[in-house]
């Protein structure tokens, strides 16, 4: 068996484009899912039973579905249900954002809940408004605890963007597999794809470990 690695350099431009789309997908998803998660967490803690119940149902639903199913379902159901045509990229973005928002919502909720109640009560006793107590006492501390978890979610998300390849979004996995079927250089292309994901993902995983050591709570 002969390996021909020139196929990788010959398609370096395509692979770079795919990689750029993978990064873009992850960034846009996070840009939607952080506000999404905050809104869901605030609804959950709002005190209104209806809003809190809705938020909890949303979170439970998307935490308990395989992401690839959400992606396929979005691909087939969104256009039929809303009578709108979305591009595969938008469809993938919506599916990822729904999934990550649900996880972020739990992260923010746990972060806010991890600040002892006495602190909020003390802030109120000092004459702060509820909003002030939230902004000046609870959130600054919660942020530190939330940050490492968000970073882990980011690393998962970065890897999960590979799943939108199944609805033919031209990101890295899709691009590599397309070149594979055009050139029949299966081993070379798939190894190149794995190597690119590894090169991008490895430092991120290490960074998360570092964030966890720096900010993680040790009892």
């Amino acid at each position: 068996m002969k390996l021909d690695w020139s196929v990788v350099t010959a398609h370096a431009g395509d692979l770079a484009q795919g990689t750029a789309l993978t990064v873009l997908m992850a960034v846009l998803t996070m840009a939607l899912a952080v506000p999404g998660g905050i809104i869901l967490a605030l609804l959950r803690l709002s005190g209104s039973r209806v809003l809190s119940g809705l938020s909890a149902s949303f979170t439970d639903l998307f935490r308990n579905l395989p992401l690839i199913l959400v992606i396929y379902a979005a691909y087939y159901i969104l256009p039929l249900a809303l009578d709108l045509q979305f591009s595969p990229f938008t469809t993938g973005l919506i599916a990822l954002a729904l999934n990550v928002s649900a996880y972020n919502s739990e992260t923010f909720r746990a972060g806010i809940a991890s600040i002892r109640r006495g602190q909020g009560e003390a802030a109120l006793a000092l004459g702060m408004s509820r909003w002030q107590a939230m902004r000046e006492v609870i959130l600054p501390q919660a942020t530190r605890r939330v940050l490492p978890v968000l970073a882990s979610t980011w690393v998962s998300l970065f890897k999960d963007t590979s799943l939108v390849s199944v609805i033919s979004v031209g990101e890295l996995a899709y691009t590599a597999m397309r070149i594979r079927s055009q050139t029949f250089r299966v081993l070379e292309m798939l190894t190149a794809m794995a190597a690119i994901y590894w090169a991008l993902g490895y430092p991120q995983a290490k960074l998360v470990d570092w964030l966890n050591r720096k900010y993680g709570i040790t009892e």
Partner: protein
Amino acid sequence: MDIDISPILESWRFLLSGLEITLLLSLLTVFCSLLLGTAVGLARCYGPAWLRVPLVFYIDSMRAVPVLVVLVWTYFALPIGTGLSLPPFWAALAALSLHIAAYVAEIIRAGVSSVRPGQTRAALALGMSRAQLIREIILPQAIVRMLPAFGSILSITIKDTAIATVIAVPEYMNHSQTLAGQSFRPIEVFVLAAIVYFIILFPITRGVDMLYRRVAHLGRS
């Protein structure tokens, strides 16, 4: 929008056979990754120093690469590189186990290192051997702290088996796609798939959440 569930009613056996494969693949994967992951995790914590570098490299690499990539590589590229050609089910089992074992190894490490070093010193000062120390002091406390995380591994595994559809493992997701394509009823089929996965996964996640609350105080030292 009209709803027609007759294709589902006609093909329920086909879907059920997919569900069986999903559950079988999940259970085998959990079993294999627990074995492999525990071995790797313990070897990383207590093994010889030279072994630590390759093990950490393996764990971090698996954490860095998407499971889709591991699946596709094992199924399509491995046979070319080694001549070892696995049928889809076994390729999926190998790839998923290899991937998830890395997470299990991390759980083991986190559990073991969560036991305060003072306890190790105390046990050694009392004249315990290293094996005794691990067996009688560290593991009983560490295992309690690892339990909820192992529960999460179960639900992660079931969700990840759905990705095995890309290498044509005839599991539930794969059969749903086939039925959606043949019947032109994707909404009904995928909504049913969502319900089925939710019914399986929700009790597990709930159980894990409860376990977290239940055992949290037991782990304190």
